């Protein structure tokens, strides 16, 4: 073989190393965001709607809210809960379609024609509910709450009221810190087995992934109830969805509670968290395997 041919062979042999796994993961995540623009458009739209409603209620407060007994932070907590509920639903629907849609429209044959491993693909998809959505939720809530404060200040100033109470009494920084902790702890780590279960089902089901995701847990509950007259499984699921008793905070108190009361330490040593994460990892491993085996529908 002559020299130029040799060098071209050598350069070819070394070229794959130029693309590290992290870059493939990055492009795989971007791909998910291109495909599912509703992942961020839906929360934005909901936030915008909430702000419109908030502005209307600030200008024309409903009768019961004119009484000064309403806690100052309540609308901000409601905003946070509202946005978290939205992104949780977005995450659920995203997970159910993530590994199902690409098989249904046969585009999996295109994705598999590229040098991206099933592990990278599944991790990219899992990172949407576990990393992207919690951070997006945090950003949207903080911005929404800031706009709410500006809006109510504007309304109060227009009425000639003093706005200093609002800006000094509302522990905005603590609220945001508590919110970030809540999103990472509950919406990412604690809910991880839920999302990973949905990913697994979306990689497995040939049709109706929603039913396959929901029916087996219900079946287990029914069988347990009839056979043993117990409801441990249902209680466990309730605990999982409810955020866990060891988390040391409930959603309602979360936004206003000072950090020290959140029970940081007890949450991170609770077995529920670690068992949940282990189960989530197992579900993900199965999802990776399923992506390898499953063919277009």
């Amino acid at each position, binding site marked *: 073989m002559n020299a130029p041919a040799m060098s071209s062979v050598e350069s070819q042999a070394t070229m794959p190393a130029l*693309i590290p796994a992290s870059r493939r993961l990055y492009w795989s995540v971007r791909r998910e965001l291109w495909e599912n623009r509703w992942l961020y458009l839906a929360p934005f739209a909901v936030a915008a709607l909430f702000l419109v409603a908030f502005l209307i209620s600030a200008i024309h407060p409903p009768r019961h809210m004119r009484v000064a007994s309403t806690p100052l932070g309540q609308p901000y907590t409601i905003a946070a809960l509202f946005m978290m509920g939205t992104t949780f639903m977005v995450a659920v629907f995203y997970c159910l379609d993530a590994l199902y849609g690409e098989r249904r429209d046969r*585009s999996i044959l295109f994705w598999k024609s590229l*040098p991206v*491993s099933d592990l990278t693909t599944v991790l990219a998809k899992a990172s949407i509910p576990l990393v992207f959505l919690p951070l997006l939720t945090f950003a949207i809530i903080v911005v929404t709450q800031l706009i709410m404060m500006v809006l109510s200040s504007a309304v109060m100033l227009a009425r000639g009221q003093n706005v200093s109470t609002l800006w000094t009494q509302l522990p905005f920084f603590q609220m945001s810190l508590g919110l970030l902790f809540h999103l990472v702890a509950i919406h990412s780590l604690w809910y991880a087995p839920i999302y990973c279960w949905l990913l697994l089902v979306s990689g497995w089901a040939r049709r109706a992934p929603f039913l396959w995701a929901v029916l087996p847990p219900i079946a287990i509950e029914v069988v347990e109830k009839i056979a043993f007259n117990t409801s441990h499984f249902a209680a466990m699921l309730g605990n999982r969805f409810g955020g866990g008793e060891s988390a040391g905070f409930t959603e309602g108190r979360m936004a206003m509670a000072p950090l020290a009361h959140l029970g940081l330490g007890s949450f991170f040593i609770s077995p529920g968290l670690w068992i949940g994460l282990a189960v989530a990892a197992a579900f993900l491993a199965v999802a990776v395997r399923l992506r390898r085996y499953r063919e277009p529908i």
Partner: protein
Amino acid sequence: MACIEAHGLRKAYGAKIALDGVDLRLEEGRILGLIGPNGAGKTTALNAILGLTPFQGELKVLGRNPWTERDQLMCDVCFIADVAVLPRWIRVSQALDYVAGVHPRFDRAKAEGFLARTTIHRSSKVRELSKGMVAQLHLALVMAIDAKLLVLDEPTLGLDILYRKQFYDSLLNDYFDGRRTIILTTHQVEEIEHVLTDVMFIHRGRIVFNRSLEELESRYLEVTVRPEQVAAARALKPIYQREVLGRSILLFDHVDRQQLAALGEVRTAGIADLFVAVIGDQASQGTGAAQ
């Protein structure tokens, strides 16, 4: 090194055997046409080669096991599985960005160059393109990848004749350079005949015919026999006989051209006719008579 090497490749879907002990060796730099009736096992064989389906037996593609090393293999292998597998939501620019982002051998400028010859807009979504344009886009993406093996499974299915011709022309002129290996399957055998260097017929999960084009041209001759000489021609043991407009056309294997010229007009046999002769024979006898 052989590009593809398979020994006793088997694959069953439940009771249905899709691949029944396939032995196969494909050297680098060949253009192989894999031809077979529907359900013969073509797509299963290609899926095994591409790491899309598990299999039994031995299979190495560019020295790798495709099932366990698909992602590394895809640095050197490209495939178009069907006209319609590009995701419908993706924009042309996004497809370019993504492939450039994940593929080490993708030459974006080359892909842009191919696209410049078409009427495809960078901002269009795949769902807005016609079927022919989607095929052009996919081919542009694939041809811009410096791969060693390209697999095309019915890449022109459902396209009109202009697009089909253009597709194979650009494949030959812009892509094939004598080093790369290409595997093609299609039902429009006549259209790829001039492209191929090798032909393989697959039937009921087995490879029943495997020849290079040179071999094909020197061995298989078709004669339009004058009516008075049909009996004499039959004595030379044709492998297939068909009647066209009242004239007998006989297909011979390994019979001297001079000898046949005395019987009528001699032509090199087309792959389609050969296919009918070999598979038709197989179907009626159920044995490997063609070998």
